[in-house]
């Protein structure tokens, strides 16, 4: 039994769940503590697009009543959570960080949200994100960027910067994310939090507003590996509403996180992920983490994945191609925004559609839709999209070969620590390079996790180590992640997040606003 900190927002989800199960704490108390924290600091961090205090407290009261009545509840019952705004929430606005969906209230819940509700996790609100999950910094949100609690002038990662910053600023103990090319792992790395992209198909995509359907994967975000595993277990599992959902038992992620054992495991350091372009401090923390894993009893080998050099190019052809198709549904006819073109009397449906999509989509979304339209056009299909799909097969082969030599693969999660807001906004290629280490896993569908590896010497900002496992072997991420986390806690003398600067009390600009 762990003593809870006096400030409940500093407790881990596992400890909160334990205290709730023992009756030492009520869900209303925990939820209210987080709502108070949101009111105190979200004006500085801008993690939330919508806060539903009333709804969260009502859910918390229901959980408390069910517990008092002796009902058997889920492992995280009563622990509040923040939900990325890409997931539909019945009765709660869902915008995907876009003006296109401003004010839209879905008539149904995503399966992930249904499972959170059934698990008794009060929904605090919806977190900020790059528009339709396109970006690595949250600067492409139509509602303004989120800020990194480690340095408010820097990005909290993207597209799930709202979910990472909500954890790093103690505004929620848990959050959900989606990862199309690294949108769970890269934000985790730059905020010193933990994020997992499960095996493709391991968590339902029903009710997620699709970016690129063959790459998107919902996953859990937490401050510790165990918290993330507990949430993973709630979110995962077969869903008949998603035809790509894997019909197999959920890997034993919680057991693996509790075991935290790497003895006898073979850990492959990917030669191609970590060289040129990687910040020295990021690389140093990574090397230290690998050395620690070796001390814990793992065998470290170097593996080569020669086709990873083409991954970024393939990804930025496949993603826009799928996105251009998926975002065609925003046609101004059935839901969302409708803008009538200026100076046109009795405009046609087509004219309204074009005017709406111009007004409703931001620059990055337009860029990618047009790029995808080009890549799929008949004259260039083979040269671009067709070649990219073949590269994808080569990358999957690289993974297969690497997993013959190692049980898991590791690399730095992102090449640098958090960059300054605005630094890469006008340079799409520089922004895309941030995803260089995370993208291969999405192309091949294998699971990946980012765990804090420490602070870079040159700027004192967090770096992350990425762990990758074969498909459906998600539990290996948690064994390795938890073992490393425990060793690093010993080295640091506590969680690295405790070293983040305190956020001062400020007038809230969030509340029940929003998007």
């Amino acid at each position, binding site marked *: 039994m762990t003593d809870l900190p006096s400030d409940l927002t500093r407790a881990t989800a596992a400890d909160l769940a334990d205290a709730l199960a023992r009756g030492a704490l009520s869900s209303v108390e925990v939820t209210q503590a987080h709502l108070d924290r949101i009111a105190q600091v979200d004006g500085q961090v801008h993690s939330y697009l919508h806060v539903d205090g009333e709804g969260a407290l009502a859910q918390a009261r229901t959980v408390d009543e069910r517990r008092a009545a002796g009902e058997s509840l889920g492992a995280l019952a009563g622990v509040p959570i923040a939900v990325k705004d890409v997931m539909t929430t019945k009765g709660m606005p869902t915008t995907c960080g876009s003006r296109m969906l401003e004010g839209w209230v879905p*008539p149904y819940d995503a399966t992930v949200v249904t499972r959170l509700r059934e698990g008794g996790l009060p929904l605090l609100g919806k977190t900020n994100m790059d528009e339709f999950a396109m970006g690595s910094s949250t600067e492409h949100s139509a509602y303004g960027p989120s800020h990194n609690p480690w340095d408010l002038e820097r990005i909290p990662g993207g597209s799930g910067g709202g979910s990472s910053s909500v954890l790093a600023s103690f505004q929620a103990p848990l959050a959900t994310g989606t990862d199309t090319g690294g949108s769970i792992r890269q934000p985790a790395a730059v905020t010193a939090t933990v994020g997992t992209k499960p095996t493709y198909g391991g968590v339902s995509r029903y009710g997620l507003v699709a970016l690129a359907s*063959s790459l998107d994967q919902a996953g859990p975000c937490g401050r510790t590996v165990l918290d993330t595993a507990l949430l993973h277990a709630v979110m995962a599992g077969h869903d008949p509403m998603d035809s*790509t959902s894997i019909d197999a038992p959920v890997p034993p992620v919680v057991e693996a996180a509790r075991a935290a054992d790497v003895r006898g495991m073979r850990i492959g350091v990917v030669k191609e992920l970590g060289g040129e372009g990687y910040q020295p401090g990021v690389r140093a923390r990574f090397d230290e983490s690998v050395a620690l894993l070796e001390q814990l009893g793992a065998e470290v080998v170097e593996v080569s994945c020669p086709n990873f050099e*083409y991954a970024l*190019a393939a990804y930025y052809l496949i993603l826009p191609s799928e996105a251009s198709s998926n975002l065609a549904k925003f046609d101004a006819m059935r839901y969302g925004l409708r803008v009538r073109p200026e100076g046109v009397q009795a405009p046609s449906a087509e004219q309204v559609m074009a005017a709406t999509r111009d007004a409703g989509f931001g620059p990055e979304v337009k860029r990618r839709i047009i790029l995808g339209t*080009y890549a799929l056009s008949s004259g260039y299909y083979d040269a*671009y999209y*067709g*070649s990219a799909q073949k590269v994808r097969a080569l990358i999957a082969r690289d993974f297969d070969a690497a997993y013959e030599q190692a049980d898991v693969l590791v690399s730095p999660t992102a090449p640098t620590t958090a960059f300054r807001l605005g630094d890469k906004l006008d340079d799409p*290629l520089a922004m895309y390079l941030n995803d260089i280490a995370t993208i291969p896993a999405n192309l091949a569908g294998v699971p990946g996790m980012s765990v804090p590896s420490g602070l870079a010497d040159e700027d004192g900002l967090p770096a992350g180590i990425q762990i990758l496992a074969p498909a459906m072997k998600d539990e290996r991420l948690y064994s390795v992640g938890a073992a490393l986390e425990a060793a690093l806690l010993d080295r640091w003398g506590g969680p690295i997040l405790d070293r983040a600067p305190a956020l001062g009390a400020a007038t809230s600009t969030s509340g029940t606003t929003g998007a």
Partner: protein
Amino acid sequence: MANLTRDDVAHLAGLARIELSDAELDRMVGELGIILESVAQVQQAPTEGVDPMSHPMPLTNVTRPDVVRPSLGAEAVLAGAPEADQQRFSVPRILDED
């Protein structure tokens, strides 16, 4: 291959049903050119004889049992529509009156 002209981008935007302003068009021509040059790297990969992979897992056609069950009501479906009329989506006309 990556030499996109302003007219090309305007054409693509038309296909994608996005009306771009002149300033947006000017900016996008340059940006897309740079991006296309970069992603053209896929053509250098050793892909001869490699079958394209469209999806990370084998796809099978999945169907649910054909059982009647409740679905969303018309009111819920139309709640997010920009305009609705007599339980239908109301859209701008396409054909002229005559």
